[in-house]
């Protein structure tokens, strides 16, 4: 039976090899490339080692800093909105036994759609001439004339954020619902007998009990929002100007538009470092709360 001690390692080996080869080793290699000058437009020049020049350039590059700021802005606003709407929908599903099935079915539709398709669809609905959103807002007298949503920075941001929130709130709602369902009913009843209002019960009972699930859902959504690419690529292409350009999109354009792989890799590393910082903050938060 001695061979059995190694058994678990044989079983996880394939997964470990794939993950090491396609995710872990490449991230080290990205850092290695980021220390070089390498442009595929000039393949003859090859790779030359330039220490941290790409990183110096990065911090002096207004467009990169703008993309970083845009990404943070997008992440904070979409995750905050998803949290609010996700919570509302989760509570609806938890309370409305009769409607749970239909609500669950409807939220799964945006979830199952490819982001690219959802972004195309909303881009069309925001169309400045035949878009349904302009027609509704104009028809109800909210706007005096048709708006070019995607041509003005603040409106383009609103349009992109609405699309992302529509597409990803379902995931938040379903996770929160799973968390709500493990809270025993007796807790609510006890609170009701004590005469606590529904709002008070939510903040003093539901929210603290929901905290572990809430933090997991927030962590996943935050990191997913931080790598945003598809929605912006399809809806605005980063425009107008570079007003809605995210880090991922700028990285893509640097590598596959300008073919500047060295600098593009430095941008990739920046995204990766941000993701690590966000994860550490969340995990620290989950950890400290868990000990109380």
């Amino acid at each position: 039976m001695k061979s059995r001690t190694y058994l678990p390692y044989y079983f996880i080996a394939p997964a470990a090899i794939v993950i090491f080869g396609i995710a872990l080793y490449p991230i080290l290699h990205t850092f290695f490339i980021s220390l070089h000058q390498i442009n595929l437009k000039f393949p003859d020049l090859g790779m030359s080692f330039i220490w941290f020049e790409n990183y110096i350039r990065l911090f002096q590059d207004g467009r990169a800093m703008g993309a970083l700021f845009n990404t943070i802005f997008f992440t904070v606003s979409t995750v905050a909105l998803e949290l609010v709407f996700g919570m509302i929908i989760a509570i609806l599903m938890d309370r409305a036994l009769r409607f749970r099935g239909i609500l669950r079915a409807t939220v799964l539709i945006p979830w199952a759609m490819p982001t690219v398709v959802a972004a195309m669809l909303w881009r069309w609905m925001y169309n400045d001439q035949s878009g349904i959103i302009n027609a509704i807002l104009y028809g109800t007298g909210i706007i005096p004339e048709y708006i070019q949503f995607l041509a003005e920075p603040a409106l383009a941001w609103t349009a992109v954020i609405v699309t992302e929130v529509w597409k990803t709130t379902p995931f938040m709602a379903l996770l929160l619902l799973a968390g709500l369902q493990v809270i025993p009913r007796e807790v609510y009843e006890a609170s009701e007998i004590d005469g606590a209002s529904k709002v008070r019960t939510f903040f003093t009972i539901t929210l603290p009990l929901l905290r572990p699930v809430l933090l997991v859902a927030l962590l996943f959504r935050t990191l997913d929002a931080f790598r945003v690419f598809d929605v912006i690529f399809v809806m605005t292409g980063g425009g107008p100007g570079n007003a809605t350009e995210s880090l991922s999109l700028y990285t893509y354009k640097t590598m596959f538009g300008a073919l500047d792989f060295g600098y593009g890799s430095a941008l990739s590393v920046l995204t990766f470092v941000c993701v690590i910082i966000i994860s550490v903050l969340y995990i620290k938060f989950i950890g400290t709360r868990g000990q109380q």
Partner: protein
Amino acid sequence: MRSTRKGKIGFGIIVIVTVVLMVFPFVWQVITSVKSPGEIFQAPPSILPEQIYTQNYKDVFTAGVPFHWYLRNSLIIAGLTTIVCLIIGSFAAYVLARFKFKGQALFLGILLAVAMFPQVAIISPLFLFFRDIGLLNTYPGLILPYTTFALPLTIWILTSFFRELPTDLEDAALIDGCSPFQSFYRIIVPLAAPGMVTTAILVFIFAWNEFLFALIFNTANHMRTVTVGITMFPGLHEVPWGTIFAASTIITLPLVLMVLILQKRIVQGLTAGSVKG
């Protein structure tokens, strides 16, 4: 629960608004896909099409874009990703559910890290590597990264399914002289079939919907996938929205139907692990 009539009505209104907001865009996509070009660019738009215009669906396959190739590519890539992921993932999930071993925490930590990984952080080395070994514009060139990024989800869900299976049968099989590997594929795998189906659907949807790797690695027209494909329809003067939404409907309707039929299982799979920690 005590609740007033007013409260009930308010509640009902919120439910209806939520349902409409969630469903309307998809319905609008289907409606737009059967409108004629003239009607599509009408302002304000008509709610229901005057007539069902099926030409958009024919144009998907004939208007200069080989959409049937894109469909075939996506089916092969998402299908093979699902199979590879389930095989590799079920091995790992089995030992995670049944054994305690050194390095287990490290392995789980790495899985979590990969699940949170920004894909953009590895595209430069992968692109150069795939270019050098000739994996650009091939199926494995996408199946490999898709498998990598779908593995954490696969392993989490399968582990939670395997944990719920009783161990008696495996013990009996071991006593009867089955190797651990035999007891795994003869007993665990068949018993966990429902969990496998749930996982398979989630992985398939992930791979079918992916965009960034597909955009970068498979740029040759005959190797493109559907998500990249629908951004490729050329317009003479205007964006051909009718054709785009016909194509969108073709690639989303099967997923939406499958998800609606199997909704309980899918929600169970999606939330597996997040609640129990």
